[in-house]
């Protein structure tokens, strides 16, 4: 393992196999290489945060895991099975469910209809539309409103609810904080313990580094499509994060992903 990667393997390496495993992934947008030799392992129950600046490839990584982009090389394994060739809807039905960047609610549908669409192909599990209404108290009485009438934070809550009612095993959260006031972001991240308590594993992408460091049990920093740092938030220093994030000094050469470090 190279210098900037700080890996505190304590609870992660108890012989458990990862729930989600990305190996040596490369994704191209036309000629542009958006991701290059990315590897990561997400274990059940973790909150795994991908951080990085604009254009680092974070969203591309999440969309590739959801099946919306096809990698040029590398593989995505979920619960031991290779899902690289599966379409997004097949992955969703297996429990890889994404809350996309920009929320992407169905604008001509009501709040409740949005949730019902999310529940159409739901797996068995604890999450129901009622439970989502309990978590977000305001939602039940506004269930027949169009989503366009909601504030940004409320829309984000509906988007999270739409994903939860599918009963995901891995919840992919793409830039939850985008375009929201800090207090709203706090409130939404405040729901995280409730989500985790139902056994859902979270993989999130966040531009707001301090927010990511606060909620994550493991972070990985991307820069121009490569991994520059990974480890537990408690094991990395602010200075390391800053260097990895902006690509200063030693990390500019591009840190290697932590291949084999968990074996």
């Amino acid at each position: 393992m190279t210098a900037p990667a700080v890996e505190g393997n304590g609870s992660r390496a108890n012989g458990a196999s990862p729930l989600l495993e990305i190996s040596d992934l490369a994704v191209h947008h036309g000629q542009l290489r958006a991701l290059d030799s990315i590897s990561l392992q997400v274990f059940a129950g973790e909150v795994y945060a991908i951080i990085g600046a604009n254009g680092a490839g974070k969203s591309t990584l999440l969309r590739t895991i959801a099946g919306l982009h096809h990698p040029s090389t590398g593989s995505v394994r979920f619960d031991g099975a290779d899902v690289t060739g599966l379409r997004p809807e097949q992955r969703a039905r297996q429990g890889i469910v994404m809350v996309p960047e920009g929320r992407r609610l169905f604008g001509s549908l009501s709040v409740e209809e949005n949730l019902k669409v999310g529940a159409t192909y739901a797996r068995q599990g604890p999450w129901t539309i009622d439970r989502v209404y309990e978590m977000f108290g305001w939602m039940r009485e506004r269930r027949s409103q169009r989503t366009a009438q909601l504030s940004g934070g409320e829309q984000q809550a509906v988007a999270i609810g739409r994903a939860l009612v599918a009963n995901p095993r891995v919840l992919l959260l793409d830039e939850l904080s985008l375009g929201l006031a800090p207090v709203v972001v706090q409130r939404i991240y405040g729901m995280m313990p409730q989500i985790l308590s139902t056994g859902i594993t979270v993989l999130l992408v966040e531009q707001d580094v301090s927010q990511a460091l606060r909620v994550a049990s493991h972070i990985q920093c991307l820069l121009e499509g490569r991994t520059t740092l990974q480890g537990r938030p408690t094991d990395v220093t602010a200075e390391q994060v800053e260097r990895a994030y902006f690509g200063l000094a030693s990390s500019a050469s591009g840190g290697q992903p932590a291949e084999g470090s968990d074996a």
Partner: protein
Amino acid sequence: MAWVNAIIQGVLTGGLYALFACGLSLMFGVMKVVNLAHGDLAVVAGYIAIGVITVTHIPVLWSFLIVVPVMAALGYVLQRTIIQGALDRGVLTTLMVTFGLSVVIENGLLQFFSANSRGIGVGLSLITASFSIGSQIQIAYLLVLIFAVAVLVLLGLQFFLSKSKFGRLIRASADDPEATQLAGADYRHVFGIAAALAFATVALGGIAYGMYSQLSPTTGTDTILLFAFAAVVIGGLGSLWGTLLGGVVLGVAQQIGAQINISDEVLAGYIVFLAVLVLRPQGLIGRRAQS
């Protein structure tokens, strides 16, 4: 009295136009596909009906039991193959592909069935019978039947889209196909079902027109497609009830035109169409989508 008659006839003909238009409106509303082969497919449905009636001796009215499923299946297959293929390359490509389809169908029909026009169930009393109100108003049973079918079809579509689970998926896919994938739905299949529904209405429109008038290989583009377009634009895109209103306004305009001078019938319809485009481009019911 002649004017009252013109309006009544116009309203009833409007049902036929609404039947043409709702499939076009559905395909555009859901897939953003402007299906330029829409009219030709209605003619194909009419020709299939003629063939089915000739071969099986099924009563004329019941031919739809065979033609509608056949056209719905054709709709699903076309959507999943060439139309989806075109959509993946961009919305404009669908214009070229459906235009090509239109040309192929029209010339195929000319090749195999000649340019002769033919009707469905010609001479049946159902088609010629009418009843009178007063001395000047004669109403054909067939037009009343077609109008009733159109209203039933629109009611059925409206109910299916707004209340059923699959209708909800269709509306969701229309809003954002990618987001429906993330919810586990195969939007290509959803689009296929929507196309099947649209083609089922096309089948009814083709049969209705074949009974009401005559079908020839060119009827599809020079009459059915244009009237369907006019009805959709007058009524407002994406609104099924707007489609009925558009059909009715077009029908009434034509009949009033014909009342003034018989050669102004079609022109009058297009003048209203143009007027709506200029003055109220969102259509008479300018609401967005089916709610």
